[in-house]
């Protein structure tokens, strides 16, 4: 384990990316659990439909987090994002 990497200060953008990844874990937990319970318990078409609708809702929430994360990563200097450009302008 690289202890230096773990203790290095993170930029605000990296913190935001990590926050968004944590946020993504919530809908993925519900999505996974909903499907697990559907496989185990759903018997009627209505019950399966209800589970699928819930799963879709959570997939949508996860997708939203994924898009936010993607936008933020694209803005990172290493990805040639806005931060990099503003740095270059400043120089």
């Amino acid at each position: 384990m690289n202890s230096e990497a773990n203790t290095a200060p993170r930029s605000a953008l990296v913190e935001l990316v990590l926050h968004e990844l944590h946020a993504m874990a919530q809908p993925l937990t519900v999505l996974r659990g909903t499907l697990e319970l559907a496989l185990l318990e759903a018997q009627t078409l209505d019950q399966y439909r209800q589970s699928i609708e819930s799963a879709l809702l959570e997939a949508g929430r996860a997708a939203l987090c994924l898009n936010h994360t993607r936008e933020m990563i694209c803005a990172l200097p290493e990805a040639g994002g806005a931060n990099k450009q503003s740095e270059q302008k400043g120089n």
Partner: protein
Amino acid sequence: MREAGCFAEQKHQPHLLIAEDDVPLAHFLKRGLQADKCAVDVVHDGESAFQAAKASQYDLLILDLNLPKLDGMDLLRQLRPVLPTLPILVLTGRSRLEDRLMALHGGADDCMVKPFSFHELTARARALLRRHGSTATRCMQVADLLLDREEFRVERAGKRITLTPKEFLVLECLMTNARRPVSRSTLMEYVWKAPYDARTNLVDVYVKYVRDKIDAGFPAKLLRTIRGIGYVITDD
């Protein structure tokens, strides 16, 4: 049906508290655990979790670390001295070993990283309840006051207190209902198996005996009178 996650083996219906700020996740967990024959309360911030955990005798706290108002780690630190035996299963979005170790060192009994399997959650919860159940039905604790039913033993701050059988029953009745007022008639029926007679002060006399033994010499008075209602054991 749901053998993998069934709580039917528990002698009584487990009472769970979920502290999770993500509303859809909290509701999903509540629904799933209720279907598993658990009574479930949900709170969405740390302060409410602290108050709820102290006010009711829960069998398990499922605690998300990322809570508003009072962070999950701070909540753990505040809860442990007050409720040292309450099983706490921590949920975290952080997958680093350091974060999981911090939660376990901070007082959690178990830790799960999101996104987790609901089956694994119920299996771990069941294991915690099973381990806790053997001591929970036997021992009760309010602040530093401990009552062990099997050993007929009472301790305050680690110091042994000798009670007569009737005094022990009075305290047992109050601690079974910890933080909830207990009427004189409830005490009368529990201890003397007789209906309450307002003309006698038998209950008050025995409560005084118990109070003198458990509270004398301690700054925090745990046994309190609720005027017009009865008595309560509480550390609020």
